[in-house]
């Protein structure tokens, strides 16, 4: 039954249509992207740690290589790690198990999307091989992306491949949840993670095509002589930014929602508690976020010269995001209330996430206010804010998820001691790295600078941030080492080590074989995945 007991054959993995194996492929690919993008982050921190060129001989060299690192770090972390880690790995492996399905609705399309994902990653990695590496940030704003000697086409193709992969995933999972739930499973009995995936994929389905259109126009402008973004021929430079952020702000919620979904699972399991106000979390929180997500993109263009009325209008809508996000925070934090809480590694990461969520979420409020943004925009305050909420929070959530479901995927436990050391290095490291960036950001340190000779007073804080980054690097390396080591010869785990009440733990073996369930799953009207309370 167990896939693990059979002999390893590479072709079986490449051509697999099993959602669990596809999930594992997504995990391996996204962790690889994370590793390389993480090395870029370390190089970025080292370059900034001292005034003048630190890792190069001349200003030109330093600027050139630094911009490629920034581009790769941003693009790979968002498109290659966070989105595929959450909606690729976690959703693929666990969503069908949670709803009692034997696989996804379209297994072959699922396999095709993981191939597209790997192709996208490979195209992105060519950055380090082609002579004129892309240096256009993950945003690719024209006219710079059109006039640079960097190879903008690689950026465009990476977005195309990963975007297409996302759209296929979205269709697949929405159909799966709608049609393949176990008999008896109503909409209000779904796991929070399932709901978070559904809402994230609704956003992907609606908004990814807009991004694809934007980067395609970039491609046409640069290589085929069109003038969409060229004002000298009747084009408009701001058109791209509007299209780009019309997708890319909702993309933040494509990351935030499943990350919160994983946390809901972990917090409920380790508190042995029902979700506090489930319906407010799902319909008010998650669907509310989807509803508002498309009306807030102009907060990325507060200093871009948009008309006043829309800068004020979207200040209001951006602030209103606090309503759905606040409802999710209340139901997530409230799940701790009268729980019975234990602190294994997944829960440690989850608790750290609550803190990161608070810091990252609250520091977004000043950035939502147009007038305050006139000073804060494009400073390292912004940089620290989105790293807290989108970078580190979501990364910790993926890590929490891997630790939480590790026994399910491998039948083995991870090394608790190694995991704990890794956790503390990561958690302390991120705060040492990003708190200094808040501080110097308020004082005006601009983003995307490899040098800051006009502001030499920021050098010490940059040095501290580098020390933090080295801590994170060590912690991440230990964490990934722990997974590999434990997957090979970890201690055998019991069937349901966290005593979860959710289907993926109660109804399948570790790891689940083809078809997932030993017998068909049926649930009763009273069943919920969070059924812990004594009766």
């Amino acid at each position, binding site marked *: 039954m167990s896939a693990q007991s059979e002999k390893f054959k590479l072709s079986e993995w490449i051509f697999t249509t099993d959602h669990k194996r596809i999930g594992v492929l997504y995990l391996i690919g996204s962790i690889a992207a994370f590793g390389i993008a993480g090395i870029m982050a370390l190089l970025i921190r080292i370059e900034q740690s001292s005034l003048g060129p630190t890792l190069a001989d001349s200003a030109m060299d330093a600027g050139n290589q630094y911009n490629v690192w920034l581009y790769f770090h941003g693009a790979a972390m968002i498109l290659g790690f966070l989105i595929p880690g959450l909606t690729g790995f976690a959703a693929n492996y666990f969503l069908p198990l949670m709803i009692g399905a034997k696989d996804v609705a379209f297994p072959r399309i699922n396999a095709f999307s993981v191939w597209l994902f790997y192709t996208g990653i490979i195209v992105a990695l060519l950055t380090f091989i082609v002579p004129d590496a892309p240096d256009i940030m993950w945003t690719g*704003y024209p006219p*710079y992306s059109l006039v640079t000697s960097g190879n903008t086409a690689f950026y465009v193709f990476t977005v195309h491949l990963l975007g297409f992969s996302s759209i296929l995933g979205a269709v697949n999972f929405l159909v799966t949840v709608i049609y393949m739930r176990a008999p008896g499973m109503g909409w209000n009995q779904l796991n929070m993670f399932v709901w978070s995936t559904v809402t994230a994929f609704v956003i992907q389905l609606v908004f990814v095509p807009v991004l694809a259109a934007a980067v395609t126009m970039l491609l046409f402008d640069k290589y085929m002589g069109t003038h969409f973004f060229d004002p000298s021929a009747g084009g408009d430079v701001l058109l791209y930014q509007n299209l780009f952020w019309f997708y890319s702000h909702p993309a933040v919620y494509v990351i935030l929602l499943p990350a919160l979904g994983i946390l809901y699972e972990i917090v409920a399991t380790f508190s042995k508690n029902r979700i506090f106000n489930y319906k407010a979390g799902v319909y008010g929180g998650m669907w509310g976020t989807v509803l508002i997500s498309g009306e807030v993109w102009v907060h990325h263009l507060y200093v871009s*010269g948009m008309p006043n009325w829309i800068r004020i209008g979207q200040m209001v809508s951006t602030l209103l995001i606090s309503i759905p996000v*606040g409802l999710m925070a209340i139901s997530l934090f409230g799940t701790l209330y009268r729980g*019975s*809480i234990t602190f294994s590694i997944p829960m440690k990461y989850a608790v750290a996430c609550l803190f990161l969520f608070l810091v990252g979420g*609250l520091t977004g409020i000043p950035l939502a206010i147009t007038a305050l943004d006139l*000073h804060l*925009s*494009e400073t390292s305050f912004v940089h620290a804010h989105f790293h807290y909420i989108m970078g580190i929070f979501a990364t910790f959530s993926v890590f929490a998820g891997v630790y939480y479901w590790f026994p399910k995927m491998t039948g083995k436990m991870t090394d608790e001691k190694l995991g704990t050391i890794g956790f503390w290095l990561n958690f302390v490291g991120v705060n040492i790295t990003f708190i200094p960036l808040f501080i110097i950001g308020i004082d005006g340190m601009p983003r995307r600078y490899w040098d800051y000779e006009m502001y030499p007073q920021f050098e010490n804080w940059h040095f501290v941030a580098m020390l933090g980054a080295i801590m994170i690097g060590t912690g991440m390396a230990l964490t990934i080492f722990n997974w590999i080591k434990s997957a090979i010869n970890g201690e055998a785990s019991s069937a349901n080590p966290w005593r979860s009440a959710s289907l993926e733990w109660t109804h399948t073996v570790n790891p689940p074989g083809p078809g997932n369930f030993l017998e068909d799953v049926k649930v009763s009207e009273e069943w919920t995945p969070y059924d812990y309370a004594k009766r």
Partner: protein
Amino acid sequence: MKVLLAALTGSGLILSSVIARAEEAAYADPVESWEQLWSTVLFDLWIMGIIFGALAVHWLIKYKAKSPDDVGDSPSLSRAQMWSWALIPAFIFMADDFYLAAKGWTVWNTYRNVPEGAMEVKVTGNMWYWEFEYEDGTTSSYDVDGKEGDGLVVPVGTPVVLRMTSNDVIHSFGLTKYRVKEDLMPGRITYIWFNPKEEAESWVTCVEFCGVLHSRMYAPVKAIPQPKFDEWLQKRAEEENA
């Protein structure tokens, strides 16, 4: 939380009306308005952060499992409780949002309404240097490599409005000291204004990514007394005509 926020809203409203009255005489200063708004928002954030943070810490300690077999026993919510726990917080968040938005809008108007009699300077962004052109056609710039040139020189006591555009890619005029920032784009003209109240020297930095020397695209911004400024402008004009 509701009481706290109500108190916060009330005190904020009183405070803002006092400030508004004090400033009726002259034009509002963007830097001061910014700082006031910033401290209001920061206060708001700390309150919310402390409420959520303290509750979480309290519960994490209080509800630590006594034995590994224990389960939680949070009560199931009645229909009324469920709606209350959704609508009341939603209403509080919304009230806070509108409160912050109203304050933010006021400061925004300060930023966008250029006072009468402002001195106009035309700013052009280039890869990778700034050009400043005064009303009489005199220009000024700054060479980062040689550390030569005066950059943007303005007289103390006169509001300055910048009309900005770019010759190549997008740049952004980031003037930390005066709390202003706006992009420069080819094909469009944008504006910002600032209020040099006292003698000061600061930097304008480019804050929209513009290529390899993006972080070397900066220039000094000097606010000097009016007589000295007139002298400087005349000298610049003569240098250019020579």
